[in-house]
């Protein structure tokens, strides 16, 4: 009766035998059952598809405009211009479709670069503390107190005349750099806090006692705890960048022509809102809101699903 292996065998027999399931699998299982998440995923996937394969959705070139066809109201699916044309006679559907890629690409670049910076700096500063932490934390504070829009307007106006060429990346390079400069601090703080929390947990001490290197401890034990929740922030951050781009474009300092973005279209559409062509604003605004909302819904639910404390 006192033999431990015998008792353990009995313990195994009474085991309920759950299949192995990771935190992620668990999260997906619970997300699958939520209709709002499914809808949001469908919407987000649709716009991703539009961004990747614009020619599937329109055969017209957004740059080929005929001023004679200016401001044709939506003809829906019967006519040549389903969503109508804008003030210069460009096809609105074609513009919308081709504007999706710069908008989403900008968001993806800004968010991934700032997450990378934030996670690296946050981990280093939370793990080593001392002067490394002091320097990083002060820099974070400096960037936090500068208002994003003011700095963006200033920087983008200053470098307005720098020509980077007209490739897809070049047209979004400037807003991408400026938005990234002001997007990494949140992740840094967030990751630093969860590293501080995680690094004194017993399993981290156990790894240290085994002789694991600092890098191994950070990558294998400390970071995975922070990463889950940072991942959940990403969709919301993408939504935020898309709307910031719209603001910058509205101010005339966003994605550069000839590229179009939803922001540029909103800016143009707003001028005609009271001029009888409301659809010019409604279409880009609708796309923007649908994308932003779906990413926010996914982000919120992902965060809840990945948080072990909410279980």
């Amino acid at each position, binding site marked *: 009766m006192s033999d*431990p292996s015998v008792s353990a065998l009995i*313990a195994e027999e009474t085991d309920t035998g759950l299949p192995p399931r990771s935190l992620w699998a668990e999260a997906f299982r619970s997300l699958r059952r939520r209709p709002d998440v499914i809808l949001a995923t469908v919407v987000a996937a649709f716009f991703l598809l539009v961004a990747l394969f614009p020619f599937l959705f329109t055969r017209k070139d957004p740059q080929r405009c005929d001023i004679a066809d200016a401001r044709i109201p939506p003809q829906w699916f019967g006519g040549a211009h389903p969503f109508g044309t804008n003030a210069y006679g460009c096809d609105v559907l074609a513009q919308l479709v081709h504007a999706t890629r710069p908008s989403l690409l900008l968001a993806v670049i800004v968010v991934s670069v700032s997450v990378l910076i934030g996670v690296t700096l946050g981990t280093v500063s939370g793990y080593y503390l001392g002067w490394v932490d002091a320097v990083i934390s002060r820099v974070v504070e400096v960037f936090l107190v500068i208002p994003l829009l003011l700095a963006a307007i200033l920087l983008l106006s200053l470098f307005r005349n720098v020509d980077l060429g007209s490739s897809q990346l070049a047209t979004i390079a400037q807003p991408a750099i400026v938005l990234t400069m002001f997007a990494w601090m949140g992740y840094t703080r967030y990751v630093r806090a969860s590293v501080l929390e995680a690094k004194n947990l017993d399993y981290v001490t*156990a790894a240290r006692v*085994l002789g*694991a290197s600092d890098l191994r401890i950070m990558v*294998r034990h400390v970071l995975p705890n922070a990463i889950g929740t940072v991942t959940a922030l990403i969709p919301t951050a993408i939504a935020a960048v898309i709307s910031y781009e719209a603001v910058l474009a509205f101010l005339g300092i966003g994605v550069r022509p000839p590229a179009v973005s939803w922001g540029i279209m909103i800016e143009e559409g707003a001028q005609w809102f009271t001029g009888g062509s409301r659809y010019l604003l409604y279409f880009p605004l609708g796309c923007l809101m649908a994308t932003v909302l779906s990413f926010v819904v996914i982000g919120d639910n992902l965060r809840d699903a990945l948080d072990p404390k909410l279980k």
Partner: protein
Amino acid sequence: MPEADVVLEVRDLAKHYPVRRGVVLKRQIGEVKAVDGVSLTLRKGRTLGLVGESGSGKSTLAKVLVGVEKPTRGQILVDGRDVTDVGRAERRALRRTIQMVFQDPYTSLNPRMSIGEIVGEAFAIHPDMAPAGDRGKAVRELLDRVGLNPDHVHRYPHQFSGGQRQRIGIARALAVRPRILLCDEPVSALDVSIQGQVINLLEELQDDLGLSYLFIAHDLSVVRHIADEVAVMYLGRVVESGTDDEVYERPHHPYTRALMSAVPVPDPTRRDDGLEIMLEGDVPSPLDPPTGCHFHTRCWLAPLIEGSVDAERPDGRPVPAVCRNDRPKLAPQESPDHHAACHFAADVARR
């Protein structure tokens, strides 16, 4: 010359934490002497029980011994060799000698790693322990060794009960084939009916593998059960040490006596047995420990010593001047291995 079978010796070990105030100019306003001059000896295949309440410094001592914290002073000798200041490579080798089992089965396992990864991590860190192809097999053997089903390598910690998790923690510690296992309250978070299973596993492993245990606990009855030798700590110092029988049957320090009297005996007919030595109040703050003998503010014996009127404690009872002013040395008692740090150790034994 160290004795041949001594595997771990600690000499006058201390760990002080500075207490700082201020944001920019951090002034040191004090010091917490978490461990304050502790000496211990652990022999091969034996178990040394380390007992103390919260704030006694027993967990800090464990962290220093496994190399997570650097000692402020003192020496740690493994097999007679001073390892307090060794280089990187040697420290890595040392990791294999001393391993640790933790108290909380829930925070001691990474929830995002399967138990195969947890137990196998040792081989990833020390690749020479097992050739790459044999690691899976080695992990399964370890799981079997601690009484778990080897087929469960792909499961995650949350699928196991507290007792099973503690077995996983033991398997992880055994992976590097250590000779010394530091058990920090390994059963105090478990249900009574499970505690025995884990204790028996530890004893069985000790017999089979010749391990030496430093067994830290606040539970005197568990220590009584598993330990060959016992050291009692109070506010960072060892106040009594000796063999299990010496300390439990003939305690020579008033704190040891008080600690033992506070353990409830699971027998209702012995409720009112003998005189109950009750300790008043809490353990004083280690930031500002009492002068002289740390225990004099709570000691039940001090007021009973004749001529102890010259100094008064917070509760108004008299204390001999010597207790208030002089730190008592850990001195041999009836047998040479039984030490107690009390100016009136002989009186403790008599009462």
